[in-house]
């Protein structure tokens, strides 16, 4: 683990997020994604078939991952690039810092990369005396704020434009103090000018990769700003950092995945810039990097293969699951406490940093199933969150009160007659107690619920007894 995870304090984080009025105001913007995705999906009749195709490609690749990685490596070397293998975050940091140091780098520009966040690369570069500059606008904003991304494709979704103005005034001291920065256009123009100078000064550019293509030894990045491209074509050295599951066999396979990626992420038919990079500058080229390096990171993923969390390795990091998650929409990404938030983070985080640290996250689900319904590669996220809950329970990591509560409930659940009698009694009692207002603003032992919303008073009878009355039988 590299970035200090606050995941073990998840419940406290959630409380802080729910009572943070500024954050709650900013999170309104996160709700726009779902509608845009729905429109994009509806515009393409083949969308559902493409999701099946995308899933099949990922499953095929994972089943042959060792061989595709070898084939990919051969092509990178053949085209004049270098491949470095990193078993964990520490190794990846060391490889990249060494590459930068040996070339006397002072400024390292960075395209947006979740793997870079996962390994804590910026801190390592800074510790080695180099300036690491995030160039994606959202990443730049949160770097100035000293934060981590709160969303995997919209890292500054928790920030208001007033927050951005304040950071820019603090950071860009050469500019007139009385300048107008009240509009997003002005903020963007200032960031563009500041970062243009950094792009031109950079010695090394580090990008992530959405896909690595085994057929051609190509890395693919997808951006809307063009920052990833300026990061990789201007400096003398381009370093790609990517995890092992980013491999796809062919260009055709990449096209299948790209068709579902942009639509699932931002609701665009295609992102503005999809760039395929293969090796360093070639004879006659007037621009482009002289050196091309790829750092392939494992960091716990090879152990996920063949196990109950293998499906998670299909993830293409589109963010659709968090864009459709009622829990994420309510608390934002930082509450999850590590690099990956939302449903994908709730499944991936315990896999990568351990169930003891990340085991609370799979509880942050209402099991509404929207994440699985929109996942472009059909990852059964709710099922895997249930697996984690079982493991947390088996290992006695969940709080004692919860465990006793579950045992108490299980005692009744295993005795149907007693269960029906007890729940019937309880429901009638609640109905009677709440008959005036129809809801409860507070209830003993239910503060975790009623602190943030009212509990509706139940109908006179349980669902089971109503069902029986209507249809004549249960079981």
């Amino acid at each position: 683990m590299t970035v200090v995870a606050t995941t073990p304090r998840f419940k406290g984080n959630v409380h802080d997020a729910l009572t943070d009025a500024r954050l709650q105001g900013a999170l309104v913007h996160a709700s726009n994604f779902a509608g845009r995705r729905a429109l994009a999906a509806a515009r393409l009749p083949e969308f559902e078939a493409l999701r099946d195709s995308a899933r099949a490609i990922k499953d095929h690749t994972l089943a042959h991952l060792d061989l595709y990685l070898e084939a990919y490596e051969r092509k990178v070397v053949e085209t004049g690039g270098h491949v470095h293998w990193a078993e964990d975050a520490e190794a990846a940091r060391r490889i990249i810092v060494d590459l930068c140091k040996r070339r006397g780098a002072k400024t390292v520009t960075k395209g947006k990369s979740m793997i870079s966040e996962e390994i804590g690369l910026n801190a390592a570069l800074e510790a080695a005396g180099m300036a690491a500059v995030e160039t994606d606008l959202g990443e730049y904003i949160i770097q100035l704020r000293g934060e981590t991304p709160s969303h995997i494709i919209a890292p500054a979704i928790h920030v208001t434009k007033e927050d951005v103005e304040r950071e820019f005034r603090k950071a860009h001291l050469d500019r007139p103090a009385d300048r107008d920065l009240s509009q997003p256009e002005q903020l963007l123009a200032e960031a563009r000018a500041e970062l243009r100078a950094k792009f031109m000064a950079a010695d090394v550019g580090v990008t992530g990769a959405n896909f690595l293509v085994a057929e051609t030894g190509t890395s693919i990045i997808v951006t809307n700003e063009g920052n990833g491209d300026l990061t990789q074509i201007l400096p003398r050295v381009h370093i790609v950092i990517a995890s092992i599951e980013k491999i796809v066999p062919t260009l055709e396979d990449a096209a299948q995945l790209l068709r579902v990626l942009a639509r699932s992420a931002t609701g665009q038919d295609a992102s503005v810039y999809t760039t395929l990079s293969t090796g360093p500058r070639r004879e006659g080229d007037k621009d482009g990097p002289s050196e091309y390096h790829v750092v392939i990171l494992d960091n716990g993923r090879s152990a996920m293969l063949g196990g109950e969390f293998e499906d998670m390795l299909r993830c293409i990091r589109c963010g659709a699951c968090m864009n459709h998650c009622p829990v994420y929409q309510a608390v934002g990404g930082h509450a999850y406490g590590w690099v990956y938030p939302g449903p994908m983070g709730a499944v991936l985080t315990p896999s990568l940093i351990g169930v003891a640290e990340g085991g609370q996250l799979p509880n942050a689900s209402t099991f509404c199933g929207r994440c699985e319904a929109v996942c472009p590669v059909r990852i059964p996220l709710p099922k895997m969150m249930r697996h984690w809950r079982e493991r947390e329970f088996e290992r006695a990591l969940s709080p004692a009160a919860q465990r006793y509560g579950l045992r108490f409930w299980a005692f009744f659940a295993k005795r149907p007659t007693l269960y029906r009698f007890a729940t019937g009694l309880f429901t009638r009692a609640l109905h009677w107690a709440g008959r005036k207002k129809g809801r409860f603003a507070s209830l003993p032992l239910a503060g975790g619920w009623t602190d943030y919303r009212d509990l509706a008073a139940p109908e006179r009878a349980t669902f089971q007894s109503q069902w029986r009355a209507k249809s004549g039988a249960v079981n």
Partner: protein
Amino acid sequence: MNPRDAILQNLRRSLGVTGGEAPRRFEVERRLAEAPPGIVPARGQGDVATRVATFRAEAERAQASVAEIASLADVPAEVARYLRESNCAATLRMGDDARLAAMPWGDTALEILFGASDGHDLNAVAMAFAGIAETGTLALVSGADNPTTLNFLPDNAIVVLRREDVVADYEAAFARLRGRYGKGNAPRTLNFVTGPSRSADIEQTLLLGAHGPRRLHIVIAG
């Protein structure tokens, strides 16, 4: 054990394989050789006129502007018109592309600069390798003829696309790519560009011209 072998060994242990199984190797080699196409959307299909119409509609949807002209010889006049009407400076940078060099730039008042961009260019023109009707996307390849920096550093990017180079889908563009570079090979940089640069990172407000061009003008010729 070196980290490469350790990672591959872990993968093989998890998968329950040795890496030497002939059927697995055969399956991987076959897929890499055959590159099966998968699901290809119907949207981009059709004859040249249909493809150009779809390309244009999709590109405009992505906030690019599009002009159609009769021949490559008319490109300089169209570029000059576009820059004048957009109140842009009368300068233009381009690479060594022979098709661009053959155009009558002398008939315009444009100041022409050659080579890669140093970040101070307002306008640049490049020849597209292909246009993809399905999403209104340009495919541009790196090289001295059309340096990649021209696609990103100038404020206004102008791209010339020959009508005959408008293909239906990405798969058709890859087929052309293999025709030029050979199967299994790719240019150093292949840019798929759909509209001008943008960002929605500040309160999800969509703004054009984030780091790349603020405007993208596509000239379809022929």
